[in-house]
Each structure stands twice: as C-alpha cells, then as structure tokens.
C-alpha cells in the first residue's frame, strides 16, 4: 500500500495495524511506516476499551473498591486487587498477618505462572504454532483449577481484601494443589524445549526486535522486557508480601531479542512453580486478616509490585472519608510501549506481530 498523497516513491508507506488483527489478543492500533519491508517508524494508539474504573473509587466504599480494582485486568486480577490493598493498608498504617502475606505470595505466583503460560500460547499462535498454543493452554487449565480450589474463582480470584485475604485454604488443600500442579510442571519442561530449541521457533524469534541494554533503561522498560536486555531488576526482591523470606533468583538474559524475552518468561514459569512449593512449605499458621473499622486517615501511599508483565505502581489518596479521592495505576504495558516501538524499528512487517506479543501487552490494564 502506498501513500497516494505523495508522489515520491522513496517516501515511506503507511500501513495500519490493528485494532482488529489476528495476532492481537486486545485492541491496539499502530500506524506502521515502511520503507520496502522494513519498518522505519511506528505510531501506537490506544483508547478503544477505556472503562473509567479509576473514577469509580470516588463512588465506592474504600473496602469494596478492591472488587473493582481486581477487574482492571483478567490476567493479573489478584495482583491489581492486592496492589490496591497494599496502598490502602499503607494509608491506614496497618500490617497484614503473616499467613495472609504468604497466601498473597502463593496467589501472586499462581497468577504469574498462568499468565506466562497464556502468553506462551498466544505468542505461539502469533507465529503460527497452533499445537504449542493448545498444549500450553492445557497446562494452564490445571493452574486455573488450583486457583478456583484455593481462592474460589478461576480468573478473578477475589481473595484479596483490605487487611489480609478473605479465603483461608487449609495446609492440606495447599499441599494437594502442589501435587495437582505437577503435571503442568512436567508439561512445561516439554513445552520449554519446544519453545527454546525448535528450529522453526528460533527462526522466528532470534535476532528479532532487539532492544539494547541502554535503550531499555532509557525508555523505561519494565519486567521481562527490561530483564531480557540484561538488567537485573525485579521488584519482588523489594520483599513485599512474603518474597523477602523466600529465596529465588531473577531470570536475566542479555540478547534483548524476542527469544530472550521468551526465555525469561519460560524461566519465570519454572521459578513460579518452585516459589509455590516454597510458599506452601513455609506457610505459617494464624489469622488471615485484621479487621478494618472506621474511616481511613487523610494521606496518600504508593505501592509497587512485580506483575507478570513488569513493575506496576498504585497510588491512593484519601481525604478522610469512606470514599477515596484518587486511585491511579501505572501499568507495565504502558511503560513498555515506547520500548516496543523502538524494538520494531528495523524489523520486517511479518515480525511485528511477534514483537508485539513478546512484550505481552495487556491493553485492558493500560486503559482501565
């Protein structure tokens, strides 16, 4: 397609990409500027699914809003609810009981594992590997079942509340869940071999969408996007919830290409399974929530978490009434969009889908 308004054949042609496109799980639009097959520029545009969830904080009781916060996104739902709770708990100045912290860690890692497995399927689908897509979603189903057994919901866990967690699965249930996850873990070993070693996959991912270490830092990339470019940065090491008491290693790659980002996520799935085991083994006994009474004091608080897609920031401001003044979320996809545009420059048109998928975009979070 050429730009008919311009007679100069050397000027770039513009190709619209999205918001409806087979590789895109969510609506995201790009104006791609192409010189022959090479991309010389990309202008992203979002704004198709804004729902105004942040404003609802002014209309709901501050303890009830967590149910709305969870629905910001269907994949990192628990972490959105928990991030809101952590910020509100910061305003209230309360500490969460130990068992609640460990259960939050358990559910966070469950969510990370199922999010990355979902990503693995979607990425495989984006480069045309349908059987890998189905195999990874089958493994994900086991994780979702465990989520339902422990938290009550398959996708929206609904177990985070201000002051702790609302569900208290018994230690025996948790141990049974770890056993139930074993087939998913075995599947993951096989799927990782396909994703990282298969010759056709490597042809599509290696050397595609390279983001250098310096540019990743300057453009403010977060999460697997930043770690794939060689930065050892993982917010879980800040020690929120029970991460300070569970030993784990941050997965870091240096290549900065699509393959490195895939490798990071595959390592993180394996790491999530091992953190789940450690969380269940070290789960302390005791209460799971502290009672919350009265109005929150005037104040504000930031909370930061490591979501499957990267660092997320929550800001809460209270005016002393039951309705909070402001709730703000800075989502990881929003932070990764400039880096994604940078990674696209120089790639060919056929690789755009793969590059978009390897940042694992979550547009619902970004627009809220």
């Amino acid at each position, binding site marked *: 397609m050429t730009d008919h308004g311009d007679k100069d054949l050397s000027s770039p042609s513009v190709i619209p990409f999205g918001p409806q496109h087979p590789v895109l799980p969510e609506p995201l639009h790009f104006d791609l500027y192409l010189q022959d097959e090479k991309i010389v520029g990309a202008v992203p545009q979002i704004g198709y699914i804004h729902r105004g969830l942040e404003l609802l904080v002014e209309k*709901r*009781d501050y303890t*009830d809003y967590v*149910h*709305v916060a969870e*629905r910001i996104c269907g994949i990192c739902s628990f972490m959105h609810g928990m991030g809101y709770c952590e910020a509100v708990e910061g305003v209230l100045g309360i500490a969460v009981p130990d068992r609640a912290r460990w259960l939050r860690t358990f559910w966070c890692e469950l969510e990370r594992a199922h999010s990355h497995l979902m990503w693995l399927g979607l990425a495989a689908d984006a480069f045309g*590997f349908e*059987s*890998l897509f189905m*195999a990874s979603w*089958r493994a994900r*189903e086991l994780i979702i079942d465990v989520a*339902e*057994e*422990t*938290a*009550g*919901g398959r996708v*929206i866990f*609904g177990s985070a509340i201000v002051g702790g967690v*609302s*569900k208290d*699965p018994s230690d025996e249930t948790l141990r049974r869940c770890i056993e139930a996850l074993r087939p998913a873990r075995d599947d993951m070993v*096989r*799927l990782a*071999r*396909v994703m990282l*070693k*298969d*010759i056709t996959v*490597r042809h599509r991912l290696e050397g595609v969408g390279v983001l250098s270490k310096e540019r990743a830092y300057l453009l403010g990339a977060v999460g697997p996007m930043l770690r794939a470019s060689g930065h050892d940065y993982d917010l879980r090491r800040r020690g929120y919830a029970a991460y300070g008491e569970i030993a784990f290693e941050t997965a870091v790659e240096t290549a900065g290409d699509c393959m490195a980002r895939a490798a990071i996520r595959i390592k993180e799935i394996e790491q999530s399974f091992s953190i789940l085991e450690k969380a269940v083994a070290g789960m302390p006994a005791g209460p799971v929530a502290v009672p919350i009474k009265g109005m929150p004091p005037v104040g504000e608080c930031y909370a930061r978490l490591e979501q499957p897609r990267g660092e997320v920031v929550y800001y809460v401001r209270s005016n002393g009434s039951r309705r909070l003044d402001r709730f703000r979320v800075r989502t990881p996809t929003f932070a990764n969009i400039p880096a994604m545009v940078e990674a696209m420059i120089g790639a060919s048109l056929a690789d755009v889908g793969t590059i978009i998928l390897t940042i694992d975009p979550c547009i619902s979070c970004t627009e809220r």
Partner: protein
Amino acid sequence: MAVLPMTRILFRNLIQGPATRRYPFVVRPSFPSSRGRITIDYPKCIHCGACDRRCPANAIKVSKDPKSWKIEHFACVTCGLCVKVCPVKCLDMAIDRPKAVRFADLAGRVDEHVTPPAPAAEADEATHA
C-alpha cells in the same frame, strides 16, 4: 537446534484423547470453596437494601414497597460482598454457577422474590416466585 520436538507431545495427545469436556452434557463439579450463584432465604429478608447499595455490578435490586428482592445472575460478578454485608445473613453463595441459557430465556437469568401485599390489600396478583 532440535527438529520437530513437538512431535512427541503430539503423539501423547493422540493417546490421551481430548482435554476438553462436552460442556452442557459433562459439567466439571465445583470445588467446595468455589464462588458461584447467590441464593436467598427470602422469608428472612428484611429488605434493608444493604446488598443493593454495596453490589459493585448493580445486579441486586431491593424494593421496600412493594417488598421484593431481585438478582440478575449474569450481571452478578460473584464477589460475595452482599453475603458479607447482609445484617440477617439470609444471603448465601452456592458453589455452582448458573448454566448457559439462551439470551431470550430470562427464566434462567433472573431470580426474583416478591412478598404479596397484606391480606387487607386488594391487589392479589403479586406472586411469590
């Protein structure tokens, strides 16, 4: 580099059979802690409207005059807040979910309870569903 590492998984899939269920005929049982359908012990309800006010999805409608309580199951997000705030504990959460129904089939989507007016009143057509 490996060539065709997926084939082994594909052969396993052939032996194992489908991973999906034939949904309307085979339903996976819910777990004891699953969040599902909201049920009401209607005679205990005092029509205070606490569930109506707190429902994040506006799925519950409570009226004092005439006395009625109504939930739209497909609007309900099963957060369980109504069960928590109910002062007389007449609400409960069942572990099963409403089954898929035709869009036009309202019977499966709405659960409505209406108290008939006192015997002195003339209007007698209100029913207790």
